[in-house]
């Protein structure tokens, strides 16, 4: 296969990626878009084999691909929906790692004849790839709740971070000037460290934003490798991801009502917060399934606010049962969907869609907020941060500024949760102590089942 052919097919793959992103940004075409992307990736991979055939180390290469597939596919197939975001984070991390490794190999292979540009781009890839790798791992640990989801901030932390960044830049310069393996490895180590420090202070709602950002980073490293390896395809694909990732990061930040700047430089500005520890001893009003049933029975309008807990309890079908029952009793029922309820945007839509909840019962935040005034009961099922008044009242708390569902405007609020433990952002929710609030402790599914039968009984 001649070079032109190779390049043209590469370009075709690039076009596939454009079409993929285009498709992915419209609900109707999203799935097809993803498949087109996969097609492009396949073409790109096959054509390398064809063009460079016969490849040296062919066995190793094929073997490695096999291993990668054997790890990646099952992971992607088995993962629970609730854990997809952290899996994406993980995938993004390994992508960054791959880019970094490729760059390191290029670096080792660099002749002294290498142009400065090439060296710079190589070093750039190593640094950003490593940051993306370690940073993504941390976000994974946070989302997987293998470590606290709250901002990890230690006194003077920001100086440590600044220092690390400075030394990364310094060593980069050194590595560019004086080609050498040791400095490169030091640089890689420093970059990994910086990635960790960069993400640690990020907490709660900002995590998905940071994933998206690191995703864009990885894209740029791919583009840079494309320059070094003289592959237009990698340049196009990488740049596409870098650009769209950046926009997407901004869009996400807006959707969650976060300042992107705050997120990015949170690392440098974050001060240790005294987010009150969960589970203090303060009186709360907890009720029985029957109490809840009675409240619901005499309500004219009820708004159901689902959250992450609903997904954990897999209670989507039960909640629908309850809703239908209430509707049959002539109660006006709506679901209040917060854009970031759950662990991924659209999480609740997806979850309730599984239970075939009629779409017109789902009300977005802006629609539903004005209606709480006329709502008799807001029943909050496994949600917490998205209804936490602290977002409006407590400057400096991790979710401050995030728009919330203002359930407190309704006559009664019912919380279904298992304990007094806080939610994702790890902060106390004053609303739980509000006199108009009633708590029904227990797993959402169990509680809902009880409520349903109690309501039937009435």
């Amino acid at each position: 296969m001649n070079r032109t052919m190779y390049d043209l097919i590469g370009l075709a793959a690039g076009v596939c990626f454009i079409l993929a992103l285009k498709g992915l940004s419209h609900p109707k075409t999203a799935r097809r878009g993803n498949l087109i992307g996969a097609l492009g990736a396949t073409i790109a991979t096959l054509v390398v084999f064809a063009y460079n055939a016969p490849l040296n180390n062919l066995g190793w290469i094929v073997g490695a691909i096999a291993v990668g597939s054997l790890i990646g596919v099952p992971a992607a197939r088995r993962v629970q929906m609730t854990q997809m975001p952290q899996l994406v984070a993980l995938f993004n991390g390994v992508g960054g790692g791959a880019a970094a490794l490729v760059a390191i190999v290029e670096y080792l292979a660099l002749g002294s004849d290498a142009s400065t540009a090439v060296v710079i781009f190589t070093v750039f890839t190593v640094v950003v790839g490593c940051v993306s790798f370690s940073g993504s791992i941390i976000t994974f640990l946070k989302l997987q709740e293998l470590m606290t989801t709250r901002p990890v901030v230690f006194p003077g932390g920001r100086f440590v971070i600044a220092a690390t960044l400075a030394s990364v830049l310094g060593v980069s310069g050194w590595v560019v000037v004086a080609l050498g393996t040791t400095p490169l490895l030091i640089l890689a180590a420093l970059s990994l460290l910086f990635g960790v420090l960069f993400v640690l202070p990020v907490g709660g709602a900002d995590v998905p934003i940071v994933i998206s950002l690191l995703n864009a980073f990885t894209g740029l490293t791919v583009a840079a490798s494309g320059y070094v390896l003289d592959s237009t395809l990698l340049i196009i694909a990488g740049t596409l991801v870098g650009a769209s990732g950046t926009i997407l990061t901004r869009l996400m930040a807006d959707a969650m009502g976060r300042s992107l700047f705050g997120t990015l430089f949170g690392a440098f500005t974050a001060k240790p917060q005294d987010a009150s520890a969960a589970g203090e001893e303060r009186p709360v009003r907890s009720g029985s399934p029957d109490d809840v049933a009675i409240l619901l029975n005499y309500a004219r309008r009820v708004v159901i606010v689902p959250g992450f807990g609903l997904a954990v309890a897999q209670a989507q079908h039960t909640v629908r049962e309850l809703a239908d029952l209430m509707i049959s009793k002539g109660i006006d029922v709506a679901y209040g969907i917060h854009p970031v309820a759950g662990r991924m945007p659209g999480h609740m839509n997806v979850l309730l869609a599984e239970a075939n909840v009629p779409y017109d019962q789902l009300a977005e935040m802006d629609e539903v907020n004005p209606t709480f005034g006329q709502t008799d009961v807001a029943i909050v099922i496994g949600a917490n941060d998205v209804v936490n008044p602290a977002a409006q009242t407590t400057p400096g708390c991790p979710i401050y500024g995030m728009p919330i569902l203002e359930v407190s405007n309704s006559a009664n609020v019912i919380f279904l949760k298992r304990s007094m433990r806080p939610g994702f952002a790890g902060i106390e929710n004053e609303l739980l102590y509000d006199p108009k609030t009633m708590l029904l402790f227990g797993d959402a599914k169990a509680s809902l089942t009880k409520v349903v039968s109690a309501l039937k009984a009435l």
Partner: protein
Amino acid sequence: MDAMAIVSIFVLAVFVGFEVVSKVSSTLHTPLMSGANAIHGVILVGAIIVADHSETTLELGLSVAAIILATINMIGGFVVTDRMLEMFKGNKKGADK
């Protein structure tokens, strides 16, 4: 390919990237991120190229590692994105919104 061409391609690709996703609805943020994430798995191509050129065992070892990671990123990424989107089937109507 000369530097100028590369810069032009880069700039244009930036615009394409911006424009193409600028109107996405918040419901699709996660799948879109996941799809884009899968796309940068094409670094696999780069990994294969360096593996092809590897002389020393060190180089080969690193390349092989790179290939494994890139493959996970690419294939895993597309599969998980597809699964996410599969879940939307439920409410096409919703999706249209």
